[in-house]
């Protein structure tokens, strides 16, 4: 069962611009996580925001969470070509597994 749904499906920007990706989920959560996947590789954890938090920062990443709207956003500031990847939101489910969305494909061009 898919928990998260990312929006947009694909995003193309130039280096230096900001990239914003959104995620909506269906049921209540303990936390929401964002992962990055470089082409054909495994996923790498970026940031986690707990259900009692509204905003969190990590380097050039900023995540917000609105539990009333069941939505989250990931902002990458001053994008670089190396940020080109797919980005997934994920919500915890029973057994410590995660429900992933389908992802946003980000392309950052020089």
């Amino acid at each position, binding site marked *: *069962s*898919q928990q998260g749904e990312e929006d947009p499906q694909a995003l193309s920007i130039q280096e230096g611009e900001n990239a914003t990706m959104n995620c909506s989920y269906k049921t209540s959560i*303990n*936390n929401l*996580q964002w*992962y990055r996947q470089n082409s*054909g*590789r*495994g*996923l*790498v*954890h970026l940031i*986690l925001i*707990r259900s009692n938090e509204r905003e969190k920062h990590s380097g050039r990443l900023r995540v917000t969470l609105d539990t009333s709207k069941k939505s989250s956003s990931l902002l990458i500031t001053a994008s670089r070509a190396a940020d080109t990847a797919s980005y*997934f939101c994920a919500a*915890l489910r029973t*057994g*410590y*597994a*995660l*429900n*992933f*969305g*389908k*992802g946003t494909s980000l392309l950052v061009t020089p």
Partner: protein
Amino acid sequence: DVKVTQSSRYLVKRTGEKVFLECVQDMDHENMFWYRQDPGLGLRLIYFSYDVKMKEKGDIPEGYSVSREKKERFSLILESASTNQTSMYLCASTSAGLPSSYNEQFFGPGTRLTVL
């Protein structure tokens, strides 16, 4: 440096073959997971395990089985491979604890399986 390794990056098998995908983690994690990833469908949970010899079905267990004989190793078995099991298979692990303190999952590099 923590690590999850998978036995193969690329694998080509024939329909009807029995296929073993191996995953090993060196972080002493209790929980291990197998996902498959397909274009347009995202990641879907096949099976997970929260302890040695324990296993739980995920969302799409049909056609798969798993084995966890040792804490660090979690194997995914395709009993009789079919073409619709052509996919990217991702293994992950995480430590146990309260959901409120839950942290990240660590992923292996993935195995791209093609069934002909």
